[in-house]
């Protein structure tokens, strides 16, 4: 089995199959990164395509010039692609935020309190959570997911997003503050 470096060499020599191998090896990681920002499958798929296309174009610069490993580099490209897409979506907003009904709020609180959830409850919980978290900026939500759900360290997040540790801390504090505001408003 070839290493990433060997595959990169082959890609730079014009081997398209080598690039497909890189794609197959790292597509889940890129998809996981995109899933922190987007929930819709077609959006995640688009980010995967954008990220790998950009990586292919920028691959000659990767060789010997980046200290990051290939997955970290791809993750950063994917995160930047997500942020770019979010920025363009802000210019032409399509997603409408829906207000939660009283019943939905109670359901959220009930599901939050219960530990054992079945698949149906899980789906309801996800739907309502997404509805509630839609009031939170996507980049804040992604940052909090990395911190709380993926339990990434501040340094790891900084590596992934290309931010300094202090910037990650500041943005995390702001994101937490925004989340509390949203929860205070709706829960």
């Amino acid at each position, binding site marked *: 089995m070839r290493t990433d470096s060997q595959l990169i060499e082959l890609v730079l020599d014009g081997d398209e199959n080598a690039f497909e191998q890189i794609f197959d090896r790292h597509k889940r990681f890129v998809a996981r990164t995109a899933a922190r920002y987007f929930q819709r499958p077609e959006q995640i798929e688009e980010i995967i395509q954008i990220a790998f296309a950009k990586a292919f174009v920028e691959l000659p610069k990767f060789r010997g010039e980046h200290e990051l490993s290939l997955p970290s580099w791809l993750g950063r490209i994917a995160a930047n692609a997500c942020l770019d897409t979010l920025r363009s979506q802000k210019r032409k907003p399509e997603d409408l935020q829906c207000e939660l009904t009283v019943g939905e709020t109670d359901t959220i609180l009930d*599901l939050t309190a219960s530990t054992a959830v079945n698949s149906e409850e899980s789906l309801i919980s996800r739907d309502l959570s997404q509805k509630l978290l839609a009031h939170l900026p996507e980049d804040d939500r992604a940052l909090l997911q990395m911190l709380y759900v993926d339990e990434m360290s501040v340094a790891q997040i900084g590596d992934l997003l290309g931010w300094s540790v202090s910037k990650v801390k500041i943005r995390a504090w702001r994101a937490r503050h925004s989340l*509390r505001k949203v929860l205070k408003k709706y829960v």
Partner: protein
Amino acid sequence: MTMQKRKIDDQELDAIGKHLLAASRLTEAEIDRIASASGTFEGVLGRIRSAEPASDRLRGLRGFVLAHRMIAGTSLAAVLCISAFALFLQQDRTAHVSTDIHTPAAKPGEARPSTPQVDYVKGFTSGRADLRPDAPAESPTTQFAIQRENRRQQPRVEQASYSPNNENHFVAVTYTGDGGESARGGRVVRLDVPRSTLFAMGFDVSLENDSPTVKADLLIGPDGVTRAVRLVE
């Protein structure tokens, strides 16, 4: 049905937030399914192929913009160089003229030597001339340059023939400082001087006449102050 909000502290809010974040995310199986969707890699290749001509076009555009900037920069530099050279030439000529302006020195007690030409100025002016008494002897070329420079600086100056056979004499204007200074050089200019001004200077001119001005030659000292006046008409 009214909504009753509970008082929740920050810790509890954070716990709820974590739960919501965890609940809202896609599962690993779903992410795998999205990543493994057919046609994704073909989509990547399609984007690469569509990006390459665009990058070529962008490279061409960059070259075009760069070439334009280079042309504009070169033109600007050329204009600046020409301007600087013209300014240098002008300053050099001014310095040359101001250094070389010279009129024959008049000896004390002698009549002032006549100059080949006299500047004829329409209207009275008390402006100081740019004269250097200690300048080196002039050449015909230098005199020509002086006259040309004077014409340039004083557009209203005309060349008029000077009549050395004029019977009138210069009358000293006594209030204009050291009379001996005029021995170091000076300049004669012909002006249309108002009759009232000449009358105030002590000349016996009729105030009632058709012409409100009288032609007069003014001997201007090296410091630009009028030393003497001679009536022409």
